[in-house]
């Protein structure tokens, strides 16, 4: 029997199934957390970027990545590493990721802030623009709490994380 060669495509396909532990409609790839995948023989190394430094989900995500990749019989070791650089920014979230966030009732972050540092998102349920910010901080470090004046739903939005010079 010949040795099965691992390829990065296979790995990325499995990473697609590793969801954010709290948002099951969005994968870590959709969030732009995966910076690099390298294969060396039977060993896979995944380099990732933490969304927030104090995010308690990081160790869960790390475990889930290891479990997902070990499903492949050809994989022997999985090494997950969180990089310090580059910094994760919210513009790394893919279009698919943004759609996944909306399905969960979370507005995706805007691409940029206004010059005064404010930003705007629309209601993920009814698309209304008539919303108010209730709290910049939410149930997790990366989310804010808003309220839609049109459909009367409270909702969350992912905070913009943009490089500040």
């Amino acid at each position, binding site marked *: 029997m010949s040795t099965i060669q691992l390829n990065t495509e296979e790995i990325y396909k499995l990473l697609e199934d590793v969801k954010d532990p709290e948002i099951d409609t969005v994968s870590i790839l959709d969030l732009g957390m995966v910076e690099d995948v390298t294969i060396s023989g039977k060993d896979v190394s995944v380099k990732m970027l*933490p969304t*927030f*430094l*104090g*995010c*308690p989900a990081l160790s869960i995500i790390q475990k889930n990545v290891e479990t997902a990749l070990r499903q492949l019989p050809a994989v022997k070791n999985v090494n997950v590493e969180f990089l*310090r*650089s580059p*910094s*994760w*920014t919210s513009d790394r979230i893919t279009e698919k990721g943004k759609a996944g966030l909306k399905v969960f009732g979370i507005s995706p972050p805007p691409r940029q802030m206004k010059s005064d*540092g404010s930003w705007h998102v629309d209601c993920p349920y009814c698309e209304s623009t008539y919303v108010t910010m*209730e*709290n*910049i*901080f*939410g*149930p*997790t*470090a990366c989310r804010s*709490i808003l309220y839609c004046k049109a459909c009367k739903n409270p909702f969350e939005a992912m*905070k913009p*994380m*943009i*490089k*500040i010079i």
Partner: protein
Amino acid sequence: MRNESLKDIAIKELLLQLADDDFIHSYRGAEWLGLAPHIEEDVASASISQDTMGHAAIYYKLLDELGEGDADKLAHDRPAKERRNAIILELVNGPGYYMKDPEYDWAFAVVRNYFYTQAKAIKVQSLHSCSYAPLAEVAQKVQMELYYHLMHWKTWFVQLLGSGHLEAVSRMKAAIGKTMPDFAGVFSLGQYGEEMVELGLIEGEADLQKKWIEAITPIFESVGLATTIEIGMARGDGRNGQHTEDLEKALETLSEVYATDKAASW
């Protein structure tokens, strides 16, 4: 004694100062959980404390990479006299205990948090050009998160002082009066400060302090505060191991679980 270069010592000292500041600041912030003025604030200040603990953890991790021991040990297993945090950050939130009759002072929390977060923003900005690359990298990320913290505390500061409410204004003024005499400790770089500056790790104390005053002066003016901003180190310099009993008690409480089983995995 280990044969360490002055450069290594200076880098470690700076990392310890940054880590210990954020660690105790986060702890004091977390003590407000369930006690903050309203539920939105409970969510916000808890989230900020969690981020801040993440910042302490990443600085401890850098120390771990330099052979100083793992983050848990650095956070939990060092006595008060080995801590490098500024004294103003270790002071209790107010009389009483978390579980029994906590008479915490929200005005003091707002003033201390706003002053510290602004000071931290200035230091972190300076660290962008730190000659120790791993610290410069971390600073980028910390600054992004800090943006929201600063916005939050500045809003509280301006709203309470600009409210015109007599009690709010007088309590805020008292809190400013309490914070200023010790606040210079946040800018102290300790006994290796000169080396830190010479090695291009961070700007000097006077420069950092000047930038901080420039940043908060317009905010003071916006709420009609004519107070001259004069800060000191009345209770000593925490960077050199001088601390109050408040820190000892805090460390005793927070390391209680760790101390029961130091080998446990977290």
